[in-house]
Structures are given as structure tokens and as C-alpha cells.
């Protein structure tokens, strides 16, 4: 009699729980983007979560881990059709497999399966503080956030500057007052004793070579001109917007090295190229003043994550040495409480308070519009 009572109670709770799970799944499917989350398993690393979504009608696959502090995004298309992915845990740099039997790494390369060697197209995307996305892409859609903001089309002016000149401000130190690095020294992971596991790095993989560019170096230099194998690249990082973006040095047949102009547009880094002295906007990804005004920048994939995660994924990685030729205390963050407080040092054209100003988010840019993905969706 007593057992029968517990049996009924168990069934009631079971059906209530099942109903709740079904309801929450249905609600999730109703969110913008008609997205699907796939959580598979967890291990000693952070849980990798996948999101299948569409941006401007283009199918995309995002993979990320809040604990490991990375989000990567690719166009979900191989040989003309979309794939259905499933996360793979604890196998970095491998992060997912598809329904055709391929396994994919964090750079979007098929490392095994029938399409081995193929690469997914990297979406034009990067990480950064929310306020910068709000001001560079007004009205940006936030994944699974029903709140909207007014879309404002991007400004293209025809004068000396492509952007409103009164929004271009002096950051303080002057042109080259913040010294960009060129072909810095590198260390292997054992030699890099100045790095801590939780330090953030911008990782790049070219062929079989992996390199890491630490925030703690970039906070002081903002630009690193480098050559990996036969590829000339520029690592651009703005400490004020938290954005790290990989630029190709070869743009339309011109090979450029870049320096820090000392100017800011919407509180964001304005690099200049030393060949034509043209000024570029890091986040807009175009030239805003000079003979190359209006040219778009070609980007390549940078992966922002922790040093711990990066060296686990790429044990043979090399990392920029603290012996940069400049006397700096790289263990000290130069901007006080800036990473966490709500302050923005320089005026911005649009303020969007849907998220905390300094929340680090991943944005995908397509047709001058952005869709934002938060780490809370990757936990």
C-alpha cells in the first residue's frame, strides 16, 4: 500500500518534469534565429556548446565555451549543403563532428572524415565589449534577447573623412606614442613563464603553426605586424573596446605594416598604414581617411581564449615573448578597473544599455549588420 503511494507520486513528478522540459524546449525553438542548442557532455575542460543559427539568411554554426572563454563561428555550408553538428568534448582542438562523419577543429578545418582538409568559411566576427557593438552596429540583434534597438545604417561620408570627423578624437599619446610591434620574439609554452593560465590570448593557426598573442602584450602595443610561415598578418587589438581582429597585411596588392595613429573613432583603435599614411577603423574594417579611403580590410580568423585552453589545444604553440624591446611592466593592466566598470573613456555616437557596457560578446557581421552572441549561451 505504502509502495503504491510512492509509485503514484513518482509518476506524477515524472510527467510534470517531462512537461516542463518539453515546454522549455518549445520556448527555445520560438526564439529569433530558429536556433538549436546541442549540449552533449562535459569533462575536465569547459563544456563546448554549439548553436545552429541563421544570420541574414545565411546558416551559421557557432561553437563556444564560457569556461574556456572562446566562441568561434563559421558559415554552415559544405559542398552546397548545411550540416548538422554535434559538440565533441575534451578533445581540443577538435570541437565538433557533423552528420557526414567529419570531425572539425576550432579553426573550422575537417581533421578527419570524408571531407578531411576542407575548411568551413570563417564568419567575419570577433569578440569585444558590448558597448562597442552597440555604437558601431546600432540596432544589433542579440541572440535570444527579445529587446530590440533602432537600426541605424552605417555612415559613409564623402569628405576628407569617411566618418564624422568630430567623432574622431585624440587618445592622448600621439601618433606612434603607443609603439606597435614588428616581427616580435616568440617563446614555446614551457619558456613562457610570464604567462598565467587565465591570461587571454589571441590565437592564430597558419598551416601547421600556431601562435598566441597575449592581451597583456597587446594592452601596451595594440598592433603586432608579424609573418607566420609565408603569410604576413597584423594582429590589431583595442584595449578600450576589447576587440582583437586579424588583418591581412596584403590588401589589394599593397603590403602594409600598421602603426597606432593615437586617434580613436567611437573609442576604438584607428591604425594607420605606414605605406600611404591612410587611417583605418579597426571595428568598421575600412579605411576612413587617406588615399585608400573606402577600401575594406580583409580579415582572418583570430581565436580569443585563455592561455590554458590554447596551449592545451596547440601544445606546440609559440607565444610572443615579453622581451619586446620596450620597457613595460606587462604583468600590470594599464587601465585600472576599466574591464569591469561601466565607464567609457571617450564619447561614443550611440549608447545601447541592453547589456552591461563591458560584457564580452561575440559578434558576427554581415551586410554592415551584426548579430551578438553572449557567453551565457555557451555554458
Amino acid at each position, binding site marked *: 500500500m505504502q509502495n503504491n503511494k510512492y509509485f503514484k507520486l513518482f509518476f506524477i513528478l515524472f510527467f510534470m518534469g517531462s512537461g516542463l522540459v518539453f515546454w522549455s524546449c518549445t520556448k527555445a525553438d520560438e526564439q529569433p534565429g530558429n536556433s538549436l542548442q546541442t549540449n552533449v557532455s562535459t569533462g575536465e575542460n569547459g563544456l563546448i556548446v554549439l548553436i545552429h543559427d541563421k544570420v541574414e539568411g545565411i546558416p551559421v554554426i557557432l561553437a563556444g565555451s564560457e569556461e574556456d572563454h572562446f566562441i568561434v563561428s563559421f558559415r554552415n555550408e559544405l559542398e552546397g549543403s548545411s550540416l548538422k553538428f554535434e559538440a565533441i568534448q575534451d578533445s581540443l582542438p577538435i570541437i565538433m563532428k557533423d552528420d557526414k562523419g567529419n570531425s572539425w577543429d576550432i579553426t573550422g578545418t575537417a581533421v578527419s572524415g570524408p571531407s578531411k582538409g576542407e575548411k568551413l568559411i570563417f564568419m567575419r566576427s570577433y569578440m569585444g565589449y558590448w558597448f562597442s557593438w552597440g555604437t558601431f552596429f546600432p540596432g544589433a540583434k542579440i541572440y535570444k534577447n527579445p529587446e530590440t534597438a533602432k537600426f541605424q545604417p552605417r555612415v559613409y561620408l564623402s569628405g576628407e573623412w569617411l566618418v564624422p*570627423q*568630430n567623432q*574622431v*578624437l*585624440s*587618445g*592622448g*599619446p*600621439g*601618433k*606612434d*606614442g603607443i*609603439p606597435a610591434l614588428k616581427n616580435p620574439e616568440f617563446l614555446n609554452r614551457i619558456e613562457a613563464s610570464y604567462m598565467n593560465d587565465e591570461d587571454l590570448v589571441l590565437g592564430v593557426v597558419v598551416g601547421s603553426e600556431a601562435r598566441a598573442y597575449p592581451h597583456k602584450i597587446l594592452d601596451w602595443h595594440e598592433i603586432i605586424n608579424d609573418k607566420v610561415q609565408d603569410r604576413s598578418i597584423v594582429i590589431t587589438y583595442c584595449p578600450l573596446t576589447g576587440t582583437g581582429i586579424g588583418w591581412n597585411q596584403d590588401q589589394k596588392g599593397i603590403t602594409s605594416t600598421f*602603426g597606432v595613429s593615437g*586617434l580613436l573613432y567611437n573609442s576604438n583603435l584607428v591604425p594607420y598604414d*605606414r605605406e600611404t599614411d591612410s587611417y583605418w577603423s579597426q571595428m568598421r574594417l575600412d579605411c576612413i581617411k587617406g588615399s585608400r579611403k573606402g577600401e575594406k580590410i580583409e580579415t582572418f580568423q583570430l581565436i580569443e581564449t585563455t592561455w590554458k585552453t590554447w596551449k592545451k589545444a596547440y601544445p606546440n604553440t609559440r607565444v610572443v615573448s615579453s622581451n619586446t624591446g*620596450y*620597457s*613595460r*611592466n606587462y604583468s*600590470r593592466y*594599464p*587601465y*585600472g*578597473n*576599466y574591464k569591469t*566598470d*561601466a*565607464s567609457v*573613456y*571617450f*564619447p561614443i555616437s550611440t549608447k545601447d544599455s541592453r547589456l552591461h557596457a563591458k560584457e564580452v560578446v561575440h559578434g558576427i557581421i554581415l551586410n554592415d549588420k551584426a548579430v551578438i552572441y553572449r557567453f551565457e549561451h555557451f555554458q
Partner: protein
Amino acid sequence: MFINTINILLRKIKWFPAFFMVWIVQTGNVHGQACCSGGVPISNMIGVRPAEIHHLTIRGTYDGNYLNSFFTGSDKLNENIVSRYSQTVFIQGIYGITERLSINALMNWVHHKRTVTSAYSDGSSTKVSGFGDAILLGQYKLIKFNEASIYLTGGIKIPTGKSDVKDENGILMAADLQPGTGSWDMIAGAGFVKSHFIRPGMSFTSTFISKLNTYSERYNGQQNYKYGNDFQFLLGITDSFFMKSMLLNPGLLVRFWHTTPDKIEDSLFPNTGGTWIYLAPSVNFQFTDMISIFGSTEIPVYQKLTGSQLSTTIRFALGFQLNISTSKNKLLIPEMKDF
């Protein structure tokens, strides 16, 4: 003798230590000038002692401040990418209205030059010139006893200098390169002067000056910015010698200077504020009762800066002083010239 004088003074004005303590506490609680110590050195000019009754003192000073030392905290880094040279010309008038009260007005013209030397920019410079902010002070001689006196100073800094100067490309210059700050600031302080210190020609000076700053608008009102407050404590001695027909006044001053970090809205602006201690030898040549010239230098002996900043490598001043009597009273021989 000196200690006795202090004791007598303290007995006469029992509330003075309390006043002094309250002021220190108040100053310590308020939140320094923009990054680096390269702004217009207005605070340096405030510590001049009051004029005697019906005497007008006119001082002209050229101040050169060369900054080529890069510090993180108190560590000097081997770094010389950015250097600055700020030149300021001050004109200051001090007039004694009564036995106790005098007024002090200060105007300046400033020229900043910032040079970046790197592998890619062989010494490109940014230059800014213009009139700086003005200062209007009242100085009250609180007590004079036994060749010693205590005076109080209070006044305002008036934002007469431009704070929206743009470069040749039409870009607004950084705040620390602007001739003015754009803010109305309050100044208060106190000084103690003891003549016949140790020997008849020697004098001792102790001055406390604080500048409490207010917010100013930047970027067409899009941002409220507040320079950190200044707190200065100066201790100095001067002596007097006759050299032929000229009076020679060598002096040595120790200047303790502390500024709190700047603020943007309610947030502290990084890499601003710090503590400096300077040793400043000076010399004054008095040709007649009316005319003297002076020169001084400031050598930083201790610097502890908030974050990483460019700081003073060497500083020097040259100037003249005219003492004009508007009555039949004889002039006092000028002694310590704070700068």
C-alpha cells in the same frame, strides 16, 4: 629660538593646528592633473608670500618643464619614445591693500611641445600654444610675531585658457596638451615665514597649498572630466649675503606634491595622479630695492605615480621681480622666492 617662536605662536592661536588638520583631511579625501606632470604649473606659483602694505610686487617668470622619464609606480623604465617640453611665461602681481590683506593675480601663456621618437616617426612633434588659466588670490596675514608670520591664502582659478584646441587635422587635442583646463577651481593654503632664522639674514618658509578642482565639460558637453586635486607642502630656507653692492639670496626648497587621479564622470581615469618630491635650489640677485632677478631648478628626488606616466626629468625657472612702493614705507628685502 625657532622652537620657542613656534610655541609662542601656537599659544597665541590655539585653533590653528585644528584648522591645519581639518584642511589636510579634507584635501586627502577629495579626488590629480591629467596624465603626467606636464600641465601648466600654476600651483607652483601660488606659494609666494604676501606683499607689504601699499607695495606692489610684479613678477615675471619663465618656467621650463622637460618630461622624458617614464615611470610605472616608482620604477623608472628605460623608455624614451615620448618626451614633452612645456614652457610657461607667468606674469604675477601682488599688492598689499592693508597691513594684513593683499591680493595676488596671475596670468600665463603656455607652449607645449610633445615629441614622439620611434623607428617610424623620427621626432614628429605636436605643438600647442595659448593663454592659460588665471588665478586670483586673497592672502591674509593672520599673525606676525617675533620676526615670524602666518598667513592664509584663498582664491579661485578662472578658466581663461582654451581647452578645446584642435590640431592641424581638426582633431581635438588631448586634455594634458590644452593650455587651459576649462574648470573653475578653488585654492586654499597657509604659510609660515620666520625671518632671522638661525642667523639674521636667514629665513625659513613653510607653505601648504591645495587646489580643489571641479568638473569641466569636454567634447561639446558629452563628458564631464575632473582633474585630480593638488596638495603641496613646501619647506625652504634662504640666506642673504652682500656681494659688492648686490644682495645675494641663495635658497633651498623641498617640495612635496601629491595629486589624486583624474575622474571621468564618477570613474577614476587611469595613469593619472601620483606623488613627487622635488629638491629645488634657487638664487636671487637683488640689484636695488626695486629690482631683482632669480633663477631656480627642480630636481625630482622621489616619484611614485599612479600606473604608468611620463614625468618630469628636470625643471627650471628664470625671472625678475619689481617691487614698487605706493607709499613712503621702505621695502622689505625679498627673501625666499617660491616658484
